[in-house]
């Protein structure tokens, strides 16, 4: 087996150095090596979006990335979204206000996706709000209240 690889990265504002096997998935690295279990894995093949994190601010599927490939980059997970002192971010608060989650398993991927989406488009139309979340699967909510949460967070 190939030799382990040294990586240095910033996760939620904190610096980490680690030695990872070449095949270690970023999702497993975050969850099992760093203990940041808020990022969830729903399909392991990049379709459901539950594992979405922000890589240098851009939403990516952490189940499709190898940890070794993000050396020198900055990762934001759901644990990094809350404000100082742990207050819910606007997107998180909108999810609670709009009942945008039920079991909560897919939610972290929606939160990271929408956080980046609203940064790029702070005032989405309803149609743009739907477009923003159209790559994430949720089996509980029927998406109605997730769309509502996007619009609420944009208010």
């Amino acid at each position, binding site marked *: 087996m190939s030799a382990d690889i040294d990586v240095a990265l910033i996760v939620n504002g904190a610096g980490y150095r680690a030695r990872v096997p070449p095949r270690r998935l970023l999702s497993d690295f975050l969850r099992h090596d760093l203990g940041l279990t808020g990022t969830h894995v729903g399909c*392991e093949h990049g379709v459901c979006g539950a594992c979405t994190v922000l890589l240098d601010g851009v939403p990516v599927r952490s189940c499709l990335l190898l940890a070794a490939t993000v050396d020198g980059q900055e990762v934001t997970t759901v644990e990094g979204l809350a404000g100082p002192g742990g207050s819910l971010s606007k997107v998180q608060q909108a999810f609670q206000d709009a009942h945008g989650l039920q079991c909560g398993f897919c939610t972290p991927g929606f939160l990271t996706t929408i956080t980046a989406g609203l940064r790029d488009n702070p005032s989405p139309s*309803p149609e743009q709000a739907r477009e923003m979340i159209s790559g994430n699967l949720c*089996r509980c909510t029927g998406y109605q209240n997730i769309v509502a949460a996007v619009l609420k967070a944009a208010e």
Partner: protein
Amino acid sequence: MMTRLFGAPIKRIEDPRLLRGQGAYLDDLGSDALAAAFVRSPHAHGRILDIDVSDAIDIDGLVAIYTYDDLPGPLAEPLPLLIPHPALTQGRTPHALAKDEVNHVGEAIAMVVARDRYIAEDAAERVVVHYAQLPPVVGIQAARAADRLVHDDVPGNLGARMTQAIGDVDAALAAAPHRLALDLTVERSASMPLEGRGVLARWDRDSKRLRVWTSTQTSTGVRAAVAAKLDLPLGAVEVITPDVGGGFGVKIVHPWPEEVLVPFAARALDRPVKFTEDRREHFVASAHERAQIQHVDVGFDDQGRIHGLDVRFWHDHGAYTPYGLIVPIITSTQLLGPYRVHDYRVTFDSLYTNTVIVTPYRGAGRPQGVFAMERTMDAIARALDLDRADVRAANFIQPEEMPYDHGLIFQDGRPLCYDSGDYPGTLAKLKALIGWSDFEQFRADARAEGRRVGIGLAMYVEGTGVGPYEGGHVHVETSGKVKVATGLTSQGQGHQTAFAQIVADELGVALEDVEVVTGDTRRFPYAVGTFASRAAVMSGSAVALAARVVRQKALRIAGEALEASPDDLEIVDGQVRVKGAPGVTIGLGTVAVLSNPLRYAFDEASKAATQFAIGNPDKPPVDEDDEPGLEGKDYYSPAQSTFANGAHAVIVETDPDTAEIKILRYCVVHDCGNLINPRIVEGQVHGGVAQGVGGALYERMVYDEHGQLLNASFMDFLMPYVTEVPSAIEIDHLETPSPLNPLGIKGAGEAGVIPSAAVFASAIEDAEGIPIRAMPISPSDLFTLRARADRLTSERPGPRAPAAGPLEEIA
């Protein structure tokens, strides 16, 4: 006065934790655990000749490999048949690890335990299994033909044949003015929660106790099963349900092979062991539902009133029957919906196939039953050229006929007796909501633009809140905080919020002072589980009753302290006070102190409770009929299910060229009795509708003739994204309270998905003028149906009627 919380759209208590990424789902636990992976059959049917692990055992980090031969005692026996039934004469269940034979792709053959999942999968890949392949039985037609058998000792692949009947259907059909026959098909789908199954076990060698965490819909069920399989006393096993990432039925099955094997390995290795299912495993190694073929014979009169209904259906239950006949029994009984049918006969065959097992998925047989009945209603309307809503109305059970006993036996072994419901009121609301009467104008306007639209409706009755029971425990701590426990589990239904609302109201305390724990056998060891839209009815009622016990006790103790009659007391904001004299109060926390006479003082509160501080010296510190502590427990066990109902309507547009099906409007009228939290109920309806859209238009399990599941990934099994669901789901509620429980509630969890296949078939048929008899329906399917209809039309003179054409099935 405090605002009543019951009925209020309270924001969920569980959300802030989940939103911060602080949820604790199964795979988030056990960072020190070894990982289990499974060798699974690549063949649908075969005999195992040999399992060779020699190439795997040298892998660094491998800890153990288990095959069937390693399983001791009860673990070597077949897994339990959870719900036996006299009609299930040929029930079969799998072994935890395959013994000699495999009966579907994905069946577990060996368990590999290693330092981490990567290594476990490396080793699993190197386990070589030699098979003698056997020809598989795939699909209902093959099972019925029985040219091949799934189990050698089950003739005809027939697990069960069951008939229920009321009246004299043969005579009623013979005498009916009109007759009609329909052949219907529903394909397989699956619950498909975003979190798959998973289990973690820790063995405590010193105390010989086992602690198991599992992503389940029944922790008490798993506990009993693990204790039995591992030959442990029940008291030595604890099962905890962590946050669960969706269930939708599949996680009610227990024990899964992994649920007994992982605890077994944890004990054998004296190390914590964890299994987290991956998505492909969930497709091929958990459970599916829905597949049925149905034949309906119906007799009716000029008003569309049903005179006789004879239903025959064939149910694909997959390779094994761990969950008995629940799904087809529900289909056969709930098929009747809101309609009065005096002469009814239903016979089903439950059939083996070499495919994944079939167990309840949200709706649990009801979508198929509703499909059969509602297709029949539409067919009658078309045959008579009557309004589809009018035909339904002609057959309704009326509110004044409640309770209405059909004379059949429901899935819980109890009479199929509707407790309450207002079906005409439901239909009236639905027609108003969707604008039923105005649709023909809309159709005409659309047609003028070259567009093709259709409207459909479907109605259902859903038995919810099945027994046998649930319990609740309510404990007021000396801090005044209220701790509530109930044994059933949560998978996103907001139980922590809804049950807290109930208890806060009953006890007169603030919502934020109430904390609810579910699915932890350490906190409440007697429970059944979360399925059949039963949690709110069962545990909601149980925690209400338990809170009333606590309230009575609090008033009695406070009455003694305040020298007032308990009848003159009330509890407001956690303070017991004399009605009309708000100055005379005692806090519930203080009452809790008084309830528990102590010898030792640990803090200020307990100092006040020492024997020298309180108590009547003439009486024992704890009276003979009393117990220490301000706590109470009670159970709710209804004589029968409560029956919710509803109606859905949809307007679709079908593309004349591509046959794409677009949802223009989707309306729901829903009656689940009194609403505890409308926000949560509407969320449940939204989610159900989305799953219904999936089941009606997109989702199917595509097996090839070899029994290989061709679409076992989210790339290929098309679950709806936001782009596939209606942009608005319009909801109106009726609240017909159930007389059966203290809160007047009925279940809501499954409602959204139940009429979906039926309502889409109704609307597409209306748009196209082609009988729709099979669901789901894709654009390709519709395209094919059009081509066939065009061929038929070209063979017969005259154009195809757009909406109310003759039905080819008219007998």
